[in-house]
């Protein structure tokens, strides 16, 4: 299934892209998205323990099962305010 992944701040710099569409197996989880990019980008692997994942603009646990067409966002520690 096709998953659109958005990267922000340090995560965007880690993968060098803002938006990447990946093809994942059925029942893939948020964790699988993190695995996918951590295995390809060393910088992503380093920040992985500190990022949260949002699916369709809500935070989810890493075990969250994705659906085709979901918008996944990789959210490093925020610094608004």
């Amino acid at each position: 299934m096709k998953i659109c992944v958005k990267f922000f701040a340090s995560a965007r710099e880690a993968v060098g892209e803002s938006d990447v569409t990946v093809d994942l197996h059925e029942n893939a989880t948020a964790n699988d998205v993190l695995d996918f990019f951590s295995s390809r980008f060393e910088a992503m692997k380093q920040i992985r323990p500190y990022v949260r994942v949002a699916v369709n603009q809500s935070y989810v646990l890493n075990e969250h099962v994705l659906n085709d067409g979901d918008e996944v966002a990789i959210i490093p520690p925020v610094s608004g305010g």
Partner: protein
Amino acid sequence: MVRIQEEKINVQEILDSVIVPEAGGVDVFIGTTRNHSQGKNVLALSYEAYVPMALELMRGIEKELHQRWNIHKVSIVHRIGDVPVTEASVVIAVSADHRAEAFAACRYAIDTLKKDVPIWKKEHFENGEIWAENAESKFAVNQSRIIKTSAEEKKNGLLD
């Protein structure tokens, strides 16, 4: 009112958006960009946001404030893009009959915004740049990791 904007924030406009004839007091928190961070001079600051999700969470904060306190109106405005030192990056205003509720709700709003709303600040120093991280946000990550761990343990039959 909840808004993310690139333009300089007009505090009076935000104040006007929460003042109602029935309210007796307004508490306003204004976050301004500082010229130092971790002992180094900050030359410039810029913010970026995951705008639709940030707005959604800001609307959620507004709703939660109304559920928890007896208040009249809430406005939360965050600026993105370059924010010169001393200018406001965020303004939160809460009007209420009683000032205790305005103060408490405003404080809760900025605490929650700093913990959860997907907005990031990049600090530019003389010798490089860094993505700032709010202490509250790092704590939140740890919390969700703890929750995750329990969930995993449950899945593995360690907890029931």
